[in-house]
């Protein structure tokens, strides 16, 4: 069985009239342990709502979410689930609760009642994992956006979850901050086999994932490997979603009659494909 399974989940914020405005509408998907899944879609497509279902912050109106064998609806399991699935939010400022970096990272393990010596170990390890160990005694408000978000990730890592869910962690960051966060995530996934669910609206981030899930109006539009998903340029365009630049370029060239079957995802692939086509 997969690590997280989402079974036909629907959810509405409107309690009086739930049928009319569903934020998430009959979504099913499986997330395997060790996988890097990207969820993309417009603002208001339900991707953030879905993220909050993964660690029992929200409970489905119908359907169910099962994390490592535990149904999120079981109240006594709530904190076990939050220990297994950590959620990082968009605004780094609002996730840091202490005035010193290392004390903030310690907040999670402190809540779990971990013994002090072990908290110290976990904090050091988490800060090293996100390359923020040298800043352990700094005040969070003096850090850059990317650094703050990495501290927020360390705060989740110190809980030692098996899976980390990130709800648009780069939306408020500048390009170099985005780069820092994404490379940290890749490292965690590749080196530590951490399951990563990245919710984003940046296509070039989604390209890095093992699997991409596209959501639109609360439903799953399509999912598959980045190659499979971004090959469906027309479908994505119809739902006013972007594709990576190189995919867009090849798609347009095809429209002009150029014979290229593959859709490239990165600049290098694109250059190689074009070179071949020109020969």
């Amino acid at each position: 069985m997969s690590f997280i399974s989402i079974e036909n989940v629907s959810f509405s914020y409107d309690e009086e009239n739930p049928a009319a405005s569903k934020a998430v509408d009959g979504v099913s998907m499986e997330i395997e342990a060790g996988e890097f899944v990207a969820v993309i879609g417009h603002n208001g497509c339900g991707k953030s709502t879905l993220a909050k279902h993964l660690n029992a912050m929200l409970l489905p109106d119908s359907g169910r979410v099962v994390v490592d064998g535990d149904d999120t609806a079981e109240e006594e399991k709530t904190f076990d689930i939050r220990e297994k699935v950590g959620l990082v939010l968009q605004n780094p400022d609002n996730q840091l609760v202490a005035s010193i970096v290392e004390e903030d990272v310690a907040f999670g393990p402190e809540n779990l009642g971990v013994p002090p010596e072990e908290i110290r170990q976990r904090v050091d390890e988490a800060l090293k994992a996100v390359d923020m160990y040298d800043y352990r005694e700094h005040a969070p408000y003096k850090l850059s956006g990317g650094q703050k978000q990495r501290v927020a990730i360390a705060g989740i890592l110190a809980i030692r979850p098996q899976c980390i869910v990130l709800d648009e962690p780069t939306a408020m960051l500048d390009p170099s901050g985005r780069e820092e966060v994404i490379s940290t995530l890749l490292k965690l996934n590749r080196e530590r086999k951490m399951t990563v669910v990245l919710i984003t609206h940046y296509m070039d981030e989604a390209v890095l994932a093992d699997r991409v899930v596209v959501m639109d109006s609360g439903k799953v539009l399509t999912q598959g490997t980045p190659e499979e998903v971004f090959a469906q340029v027309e479908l994505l365009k119809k739902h006013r979603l972007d594709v990576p630049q190189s995919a867009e370029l090849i798609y347009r060239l095809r429209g002009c009659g150029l014979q290229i079957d593959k859709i490239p995802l990165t600049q290098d692939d694109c250059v190689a494909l074009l070179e071949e086509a020109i020969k």
Partner: protein
Amino acid sequence: MVRDVSFGQYFPGKSPMHRLDPRGKLIMFIAFIVIIFCTFNYVSLGITAAFTVLFLVLSQISPKFYFKSLKVIIFIVIFTSLLNLFYGSGEPLWQWGILRITVNGINRAVFVTVRIVCLILAGSCLTFTTSPTELTDAIERLMKPLKVIRFPVHEIAMMMSLALRFVPTLLEETDKIMAAQKARGADMESGNLFKRVKALIPILIPLFVSAFRRAYDVATAMECRCYRGGAGRTRMKQIHLSARDVAAFIVTALTIGGVIVCNIFLKRVL
């Protein structure tokens, strides 16, 4: 602009003051407040001033920051000392209309100045060398007995530490909102006091709205990190009394003793 204030900031470090038990520091600070207002002659005033200086030196923090925190209250100090200077009782040394200076007035002015300055310096020393988390942790532990009467000790301590954490963030936000309103033509620098206060409304409303939104986000983030109240929580930084704390207590006790002895055996000036 507002961010220039150093009072209430924390400077990480490893000085003897940093290493003291925050509970001890808090108790010593409270004892110090009491004792500074119980000094009635120059010897005891000197003892408390020396005590303050000793701890400032031990904190190993640049005097620059202490001066900065004094700068904030300089007007209060000048105002109260002038007020005291002219309201002394006894034979006037100098008189001009209703203004008259007496020996008693001069004494009062000196005492009030030294007291306020020492108080601010000691307060700064406490916050400079104690992280907000340590401070609230200390308050939580010291107030623990109140739990018996169902006083929400942990909740209050948590609220305090969150408030301290968000002071710089909200200041930054205030600056941004002010800039945004100025860009739309808001005038905050001219007009009488009433007009200026009124001009603050378009700053305060967005600030409050965003603070509430932030509070909601913070609560979500805390729940994501398994926060469920004070029960069963542990702390990474354990605090316990050491020989250093005992030494600090002895120094404080000697100061208190010195002040009491001076008050009994020497003439009161005030």
